[in-house]
């Protein structure tokens, strides 16, 4: 058989958040280059945070990413409160959990139904689906908007939440707001059930497997850990969030100038599939049913199935969000907890020098924020470790195994399989570009 030569250059991969290229070279049937390049312009967020007040960190770091704005806000707030020594109230924690559920729902639904579904249905984007399948597109957009409307009620808006800040919330939902949220969540449940049934016949993914280490939050209680917990892995690692640098171990590799992460092996994965593999038994029972129906079983080592894990998490987040709002309705909120902080110019929140870490499960995986502050609450050092950044090495190892396995196929099929693999991780490149190195050939 003739040894194959293949050059794949996907410039500006579409239907992902941010700018990334895929570079694959095969010569004489041998894989020579395999890279996911990040070409987003660097924005220097960690550098810009220095000299700003810790009370501005949430507002600024939310702007790292429009899709994960609530996730960044929550990780930032957790790190800031850790540094300041603030313990949030039960009510605040509950509302933050609700916000995180909405964040996962919003992002996962966008990814499944608007970004991945075109691949499953064999079209280039949702636009051709408007001919003949307009209802499907309308439902997807309606689900996305519902998540957005829920966030409008809870925190003012989804893209760059307004009322979730260090110390709590500047505005708390009123009883009529809780009722409105329950109505929206009930409508979302109907739409999601219909959408799942409609998608199921097409919900098949390439049969590809590669065993790897999965990393995410773990805990000893019965709750599916998203906002709090230790950092754990399917290889049995467990550490506190303060030890995050021992988990992420960022390093530079010779074949690519992008920073990678590793823990117990050459790479690790974070995200919906990692969380499912670590904590599937803690999912809401309805979510467990959906997992069983689509054949998702831990430990699943097919990276394409990350999209399936997202679908399962949508059900969990929806059901738990409904449970939280019902709890809030049954136990009236304490509106004295509404706070006005601004830049804390009135020193309503006591300030001290310190170091704080936030570790939160955002849609694409575990996110770390770390700040050092001086005794005036001014940031002296900042570090953010982004899920997509942690996944980049793992994606490349997947590609190195995948490409030789499918070399006998037509070139356009190979390109599609490769693009779909990268897209399955739901990479968020705006997020990662603040710290990933850009590979520039000269």
């Amino acid at each position, binding site marked *: 058989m003739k040894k194959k030569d293949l050059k794949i250059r996907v410039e500006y991969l579409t239907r992902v958040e941010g700018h990334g290229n895929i570079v694959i070279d095969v010569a004489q049937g041998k894989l020579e280059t395999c890279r996911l390049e990040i070409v987003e312009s*660097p924005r220097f967020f960690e550098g810009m945070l220095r000299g700003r007040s810790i009370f501005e960190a949430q507002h600024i770091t939310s702007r790292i990413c429009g899709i994960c704005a609530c996730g960044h806000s929550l990780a930032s707030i957790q790190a800031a409160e850790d540094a300041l020594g603030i313990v949030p109230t039960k009510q605040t924690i509950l509302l933050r959990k609700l916000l995180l559920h909405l964040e996962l729902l919003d992002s996962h639904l966008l990814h499944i139904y608007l970004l991945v579904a075109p691949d499953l249905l064999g079209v280039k984007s949702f636009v051709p689906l408007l001919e003949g399948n307009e209802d499907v597109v309308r439902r997807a957009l309606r689900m996305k908007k519902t998540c957005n409307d829920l966030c409008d009620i809870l925190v003012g808006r989804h893209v760059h939440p*307004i009322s979730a800040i260090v110390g709590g919330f500047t505005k708390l939902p009123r009883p009529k707001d809780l009722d409105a949220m329950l109505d929206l969540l009930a409508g979302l449940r109907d739409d999601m059930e219909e959408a799942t049934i409609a998608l199921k016949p097409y919900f098949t993914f390439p049969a590809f497997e590669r065993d790897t280490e999965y990393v995410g939050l773990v805990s000893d209680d019965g709750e599916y850990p998203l906002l709090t917990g230790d950092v754990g892995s399917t290889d049995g690692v467990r550490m506190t969030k303060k030890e995050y640098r021992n988990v992420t171990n960022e390093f530079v590799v010779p074949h690519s100038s992008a920073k990678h992460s590793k823990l117990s092996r050459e790479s690790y994965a974070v995200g919906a599939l990692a969380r499912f593999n670590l904590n599937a038994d803690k999912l809401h029972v309805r979510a467990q049913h959906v997992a069983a129906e689509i054949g998702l079983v831990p430990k699943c080592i097919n990276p394409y199935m990350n999209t399936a894990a997202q679908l399962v998490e949508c059900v969990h987040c929806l059901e738990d969000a409904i449970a939280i709002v019902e709890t809030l309705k049954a136990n009236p909120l304490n509106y004295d907890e*509404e706070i*006005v902080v601004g830049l804390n110019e009135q020193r309503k929140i006591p300030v001290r020098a310190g170091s704080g870490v936030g570790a939160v499960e955002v849609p694409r995986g575990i996110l770390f924020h770390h700040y050092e502050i001086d005794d005036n609450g001014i940031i002296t050092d900042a570090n953010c470790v982004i899920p997509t950044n942690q996944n980049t090495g793992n994606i490349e190892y997947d590609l190195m195994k995948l490409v030789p396995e499918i070399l006998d196929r037509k070139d356009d099929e190979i390109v599609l399989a490769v693009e779909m693999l990268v897209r399955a991780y739901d990479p968020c490149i705006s997020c990662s570009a603040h710290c990933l190195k850009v590979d520039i050939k000269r």
Partner: protein
Amino acid sequence: MKKPKVGIFDFACCEGCQLQLANMGEQVLSLLGSLRVMEWREVMSETWGKKLDIAIVEGSITDPHAVERIQRIRRRASVLIAYGSCATIGGVNGMKNNFVFDEIRKYVYGDSYAFFPTEPTKAVHQVVEVDYFIHGCPVYIPEVVTVLKAALQGIPYYVPDYPVCVECKLNENVCMYDRKVTCLGPVTRAGCNSWCINNGNICYGCRGMVSNPNEKGALDVLAKYGIPTSLVVNKMNMYNKCRELDEP
């Protein structure tokens, strides 16, 4: 009438303003029904690369490659809309201009900082001509619809040149100064319906300054509440640092 051809492009930003379009839900289909979206990398694999009637541009211009790219987009677009604070005023990306560039590159990227060519952050109009501005971080959807309607009809859109306070008063919010915290509402362009203050937070100035801010009035307010001017200047520079690059 032929539907206008539209392209949506992003530069250094969080892409949240593009996401605001998806957040319109089914309403976005009415919008899409009145135009032909030829390029939109975030949600489409289709490419076009030819003449456009309207280019919607998100993000700031922060490196030499971006300068060339925005010039190419400008050449093939009859109308260019700067979309969101990063594009219209530089936005949070402008904070970079507070630092010595080699220092901030080394801080973020270590020894390999030389791989990252960077230039002072610029708003889009500081590089190419802009026909319409949609301010905000993120953009405010009702204003987006108004501007797009104006652009489709070929009539001008005038960004409100009065402060956020005007809208805030109509919304009957208690003034943040009366709640003992500083707020940039008095010097920031309205048009967002005082979105942040309605939700209990302060105005951070994301829409840029009014053309003729009442500086004396603002200084009086600061003096009344004993707030140092430097604190407010530092706040202004979170979104508005790039104003220093505007022609006087």
